[in-house]
């Protein structure tokens, strides 16, 4: 994964890019961009590294070990709003709405959001899923404090639910297929936070403030290559999954196709270009976070997004 197979054009800019989380369907477009020659065409020599999690990726970016990352925008902005990592700039949104959801098994005790009070809900430790939950609970009218959180590692979540250790999970909805596999084919009930918290974005491409300021052309070339690949990916889920599998043999084609299919409606929203980051929506998203008590008031949209670099 470290070196490009497609020969980079001479004089290309060397950059390092970090995926959101390992090598699964949602991140397949990076390898598609490479395989399809989009990077080479944009005179980019991109090294793709596998990301660990929201905060780890931000740290890597801040430490200068990478120039671009794919990250959860809500989580990133919460951290920016707390005064950490203030020198990051989003340049595109890959998912127009947050993918965070409540997932339960059909036939279980959780059928609607109302059923969550008094239940055990598993989530990745300290993840944005938990942070956002009070805001979600308020909208659906339940008492957030009556939910029993079980902290665990992301990889462990499907097993927890499948084995009945928890009644529901808070996770990305695109993981639902994997959860069904873990549960031996039982169907899932998916309750997206996005149904209630409509202004929150999902993942996005982020770079440093310095690059956004000093090398806007580099950022644009990278953004365009990636968005082109993202579009190609949702149009050709099977092929994208194969490309992913070729670069990362540990990836699973079926699971990747499932993720890509599930995320498609979140990538392509009517009336706006892929990757769009609308300033007014960003402002509303920040307001949502402020109202949820997740950040202190005062975070400006320009402080987390470079609107000069977002797709128009």
């Amino acid at each position, binding site marked *: 994964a470290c070196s490009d197979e497609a020969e980079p054009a001479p004089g290309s800019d060397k950059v390092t890019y970090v995926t959101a989380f390992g090598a699964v369907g949602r991140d397949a477009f990076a390898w598609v961009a490479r395989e399809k020659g989009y990077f080479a065409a944009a005179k980019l020599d991109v090294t793709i590294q596998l990301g660990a999690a929201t905060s780890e990726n931000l740290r890597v970016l801040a430490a200068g070990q990478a120039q671009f990352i794919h990250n959860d925008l809500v989580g990133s902005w919460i951290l920016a709003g707390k005064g950490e990592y203030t020198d990051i700039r989003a340049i595109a949104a890959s998912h127009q709405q947050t993918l965070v959801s409540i997932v339960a098994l059909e036939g279980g005790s959780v059928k609607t959001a109302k059923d969550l009070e008094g239940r055990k809900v598993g989530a990745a*430790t*300290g*993840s944005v899923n938990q942070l956002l939950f009070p805001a979600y609970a308020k909208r659906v009218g339940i008492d957030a404090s009556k939910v029993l959180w079980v*902290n*665990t590692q992301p990889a*462990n979540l499907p097993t927890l639910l499948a084995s009945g250790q928890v009644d529901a999970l808070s996770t990305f909805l695109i993981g639902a297929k994997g959860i069904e596999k873990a549960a031996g084919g039982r169907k899932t009930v998916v309750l997206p936070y996005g149904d209630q918290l409509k202004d929150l974005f999902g993942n996005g491409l982020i770079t440093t403030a310095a690059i956004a300021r000093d090398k806007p052309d580099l950022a644009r070339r990278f953004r365009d290559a990636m968005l082109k690949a993202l579009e190609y990916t949702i149009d050709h889920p099977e092929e994208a999954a194969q490309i992913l599998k070729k670069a990362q043999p540990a990836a699973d084609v079926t699971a990747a196709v499932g993720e890509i299919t599930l995320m498609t409606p979140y990538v392509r929203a009517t009336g706006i270009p892929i990757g769009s980051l609308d300033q007014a929506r960003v402002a509303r998203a920040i307001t949502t976070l402020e109202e949820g008590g997740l950040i202190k008031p005062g975070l400006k949209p320009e402080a987390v997004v470079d609107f000069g670099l977002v797709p128009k």
Partner: protein
Amino acid sequence: MKSFALPVAGAVVAIAVWWAATAVLGVRPFFLPSPPDIVAAFLAQPGYLLREAWATLTATVIGFLVAAVGGVLLAVVLTLAQSVSRATLPLLVALNSVPKVALAPLLVLWLGFGAAPKVVLVVLICFFPVVVASAAGLGSTPAELGELGRSLSASRWQQYAKIRLPWALPQVFVGLKIAISLAVIGAVVAEINQPNHGLGAVVVLSGMSFDTPLAFAAIALLALLSVGLFYAVAGLERLLLPWAKAITG
């Protein structure tokens, strides 16, 4: 008196270097907080931190004791019968090689959310050093003492109880000293995986909320805990084995 001066001096120098580094290089606190930041974080909620430290300590100590006793017993079995050792040691090595991080979630699955998975992880992580060191110790009885036992028609059990095990104790303690450090790590790995209690949970949760000084306060407590436990084991060794020091030089 003097025996405390040097370790304290070492710690003071280390902290001073660290402090100087953060001050001179102007490191941001969330990368590496300076000592006063950490002290402040501790003083902000000492009760909470000490309570979590206690949780980590108990799991560590219980798991360590189980592993110590079990490890020595297994070493006895392994040295008793070469064939058992031949057949099972590779399996033991293979099992030990499974990264404990990967095991932690499974333990939660099997044992639930209480203290059990933590204790089990501690046992698993510190079992192997005790077994390897004890087996080496039990196999190192000088030929003349081995012959002494045999010449007295000592039973297997007596040979171990009266000769081999006492002789092996200094080496058992090598295993125990390595194990006690691992035990703390094991408890923390379990807590990181399933952060409801303990200093590992504090590290994770404060990391999530980007309270790096609090995370480092927890890490500092962990270090203190480790050092304390290590020296407790070393002290026990001194107490039990004065003869071992006396016959070396």
